[in-house]
């Protein structure tokens, strides 16, 4: 039960940071999404984000910072295992399930659904 509350709070706070940036800086949501993924990569490589995941679990992995952390974790693992080639393979390999499922489900849903009439 406490893990669920921790996930709620962690995910909530990450989204609040994004919302404050949108409200106070007028950065567009698309740029916020880019910013959060890159921030996730940086915090992931520095070992800070893994500690946040330790605490918030899915509350930390589900926001886009978590996607960035996955990329970072993957590239570090690949560099440790295969050296320089890991620089190019690690990130996408770790994120592959997310990328492929987003493309597959996204494509199918776009094909079968009708946009709402405006």
């Amino acid at each position, binding site marked *: 039960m406490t893990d*669920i509350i921790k996930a709620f709070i962690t995910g909530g706070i990450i989204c609040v940071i994004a919302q404050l940036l*949108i409200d106070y800086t007028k950065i567009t949501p698309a740029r916020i*999404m*880019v910013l959060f993924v890159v921030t996730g990569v940086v915090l992931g490589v520095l070992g800070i984000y893994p500690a946040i995941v330790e605490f918030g679990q899915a509350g930390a992995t589900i926001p*886009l910072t978590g996607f960035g952390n996955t990329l970072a974790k993957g590239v570090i693992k690949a560099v440790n295992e295969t050296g320089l080639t890991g620089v190019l393979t690690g990130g996408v390999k770790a994120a592959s*399930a*997310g990328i492929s499922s987003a493309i597959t489900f996204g494509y199918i849903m*776009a*094909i079968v659904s009708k946009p709402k009439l405006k």
Partner: protein
Amino acid sequence: MSKKITRHEYQHLVEKTMPPSRVFRDVLAAFVTGGLICTIAQIFFMGMESLGVDEETAYMLTTVIMIFLGAVLTGLNIYDKIGKFGGAGASIPVTGFSNSIVSPAMEYKKEGYVMGVGAKMFLIAGPVLVYGIFASVVAGLIYYLWIQVM
């Protein structure tokens, strides 16, 4: 006698008093929406762990499930409403990433399956992947050089 204020002064007053309450509402909605989406994910994650799925796979499958839900809810025109209410609380979770793929793809279907659906899917997801993957390569290179030196 009540004090009369000009339309301009009124406008100024509105601008001065509106933002804090609007920001408070936005932030609260983002907290609740983002928190609830992560809570749903957490329940899937814990369910899989209790079935003996290893942690890494459980995180991966949780992300896949949330991407699936985001795509379906977007297709049903429900995620747009969640987004309107929750703001960043709806766009920052991976369900929002999924929404950013399906939404323009649906919208531009009339421009064809290649340059419409195929290209517009990545209107927002494209930049996210470009900068995310590029950052991971730069980070990987720095890490590689770091462990050579150390």
